[in-house]
């Protein structure tokens, strides 16, 4: 009874086609946005800088992989490398054209990453499934090697680890050390919100539907006139774009250094886990997955202290591995649609509650 669509009439086609057709959902969204905007006023600096910002950035990356894996059915183990591509490209753009506004540099970096994604997505034209995993592993290892071996990417600095240049938006620093966490947070938040909105629209547009058709049955999709090559490559391009933007933000707004090991194969697995645990084929799931995977290790590290226990760090790290592995298997068996499905089930329950039927 608490959650119901009854009485929520749609009197125009536009209303029926709205992104979120149910009023209660819309209200919830507004509340979520309001809370997100209020966060800088209430949250501590630590929460903003070390929890909210990385979570929001990983949401972008997870959404990117979800578009590819959850919607188009193409696996990628190279998301980390695409994030690295975004980070290095953004650094190049920001230093080569210092007059460009920072958001533009980051978008440009995303576009460059999309190009790279297309190149490594090409094998998808001939193969699918886990064969593609190997092709994307090639991207993972090759790209990181490339960025660390061609000094052009780091502007020939001797250390090889460039620092993102400070930049302002509307007169406030959003990157570099002078940037206050609230500004970085709002900067990242606007990217996340904008890209989420795009993703929601994409997946119900012609292009998103053709992705899903390819995912569900590629031969049938081809028969009804969907071009597999074009469809898969757009999925790769857009997914890489998201990862590229995420990588740029990760370097510029979170770790404040463009460092290759931050984007190694473990990062790729981390993003994959976010998508699986969050929910394959659900944008909202990317949020759940990113929040869960980012916060869980921090929780594991702090929980024993709250309980007054003292478990050494190495045990915790090993436990973390085990729990993540077990959860992957658990979700794949019990709930392949991940946390997003649990959310949906919760809503179903609320629709009936408190009546049993």
């Amino acid at each position, binding site marked *: 009874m608490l959650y119901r669509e009854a009485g929520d009439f749609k009197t125009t086609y536009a209303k029926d086609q709205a992104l979120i057709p149910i009023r209660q959902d819309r209200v919830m969204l507004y509340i979520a946005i309001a809370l997100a905007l209020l966060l800088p006023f209430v949250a501590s600096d630590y929460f903003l800088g070390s929890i909210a910002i990385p979570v929001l950035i990983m949401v972008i990356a997870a959404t990117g992989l979800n578009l590819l894996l959850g919607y188009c059915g193409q696996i990628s183990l190279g998301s980390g490398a695409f994030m690295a591509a975004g980070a290095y490209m953004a650094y190049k753009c920001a230093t080569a054209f210092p007059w460009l506004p920072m958001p533009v540099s980051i978008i440009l970096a995303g576009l460059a990453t999309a190009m790279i994604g297309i190149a490594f997505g090409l094998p998808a034209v001939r193969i699918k499934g886990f064969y593609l995993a190997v092709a994307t592993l090639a991207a993972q290892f*090759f790209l990181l090697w490339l960025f660390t071996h061609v000094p052009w990417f780091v502007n020939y600095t001797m250390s090889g680890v460039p620092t993102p240049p400070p930049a302002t938006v509307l007169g406030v620093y959003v990157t570099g050390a002078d940037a206050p966490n609230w500004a970085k947070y709002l900067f990242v938040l606007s990217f996340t919100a904008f890209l989420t909105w795009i993703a929601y629209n994409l997946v119900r547009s012609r292009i998103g539907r053709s992705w899903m058709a390819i995912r569900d049955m590629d031969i049938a999709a081809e028969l009804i006139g969907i071009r597999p090559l074009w469809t898969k490559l757009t999925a790769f391009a857009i997914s890489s774009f998201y990862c590229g933007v995420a990588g740029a933000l990760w370097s510029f707004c979170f770790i404040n250094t463009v460092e290759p090991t931050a984007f190694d194969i473990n990062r790729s697995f981390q993003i994959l886990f976010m998508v699986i645990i969050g929910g394959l084929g659900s944008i909202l799931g990317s949020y759940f997955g990113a929040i869960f995977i980012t916060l869980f290790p921090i929780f594991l590290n702090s929980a024993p202290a709250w309980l007054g226990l003292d478990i050494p760090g190495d045990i915790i*790290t*090993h436990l973390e591995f085990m729990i993540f592995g*077990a959860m992957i298997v658990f979700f794949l068996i019990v709930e392949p649609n991940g946390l997003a499905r649990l959310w949906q089930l919760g809503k179903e329950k609320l629709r009936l509650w408190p009546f049993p039927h």
Partner: protein
Amino acid sequence: MEFLSDFFVAPIMEMVDAPEFLAEVIIAGLMSGVMYSLVGLGFVLIFKASGIFNFAQGVMVLFAALNFVGLMDSGVHPIIAFIATVVIMTVLAMAIERVVLRRLVNQNQLILFMSTIGIAFFLEGFGELIWGGNVRPLDIGIPDDVVFIANGTILIQEADLFAGATAALLVTILALGFRYTAVGRALRAVADDHQAALSIGIPLNNIWVIVWAVAGFVALVAGIMWGTKLGVQFSISIVALKALPVLILGGFTSIPGAIIGGLIIGAGEKVAEVYWGSLFGGAIEEWFAYIVALLFLLFRPQGLFGEKIIDRV
């Protein structure tokens, strides 16, 4: 122009100038290829019998070796430790079948693949939780010396020769087992056609357990070989990722393919690194195998020896 000559002419000249060294590079490469082959072999066994692409194979190598060295360090005789580890790997196979595979029957291959990634993470954490994350030297009396052949110009490590011989023996035993035992016949039947095998009364679940246990055994052998040379450590599971390109090259369903693919990748990446590496600033080994696999995927997706069962688009 200079680049072209550096790329095409100079390395060849170098090879011709010092053929003994080339031979040494190739032999060394083949020997590290043996390791890739052993890991690849485990992949192929499981893939043939159940259609699962077992990402956890590399971690199984680490897990088996950790158990073995852990038991040995606590004073157990190597032979008993070996048997105990085989038992552990069999129990593990049963657990995986019970808890994971049985519940994922008929699922999309991609889902199965991702579930093995989950298994890989679990095992990695579990193994290190029990035995700790330190590098553990392993010494079971495998010779660790070098021999020189061809008038002392070519250097070969005895441990490598030993590993090569063991791998050859292992493959022979497996091949004979597949050929002449009842279980082997059942395995081949399952590999050919699940449904038909089921209809003539082959218990599929048992076959899966057996295959995973055999893969665990192969992993243990690989782990011991690897561990003797370099110590049992975390990074074994990362090196084992290289078995993926090996399979692309050799084909997913062919045991000889896995062996030969491993040898080609092993030798190829050493030759590439030694002769062409410096041209690109070195460390091209990092991606060489994967890029070769990528090219193979574009031009011959079924690999050198694989059947054309691959989903073509």
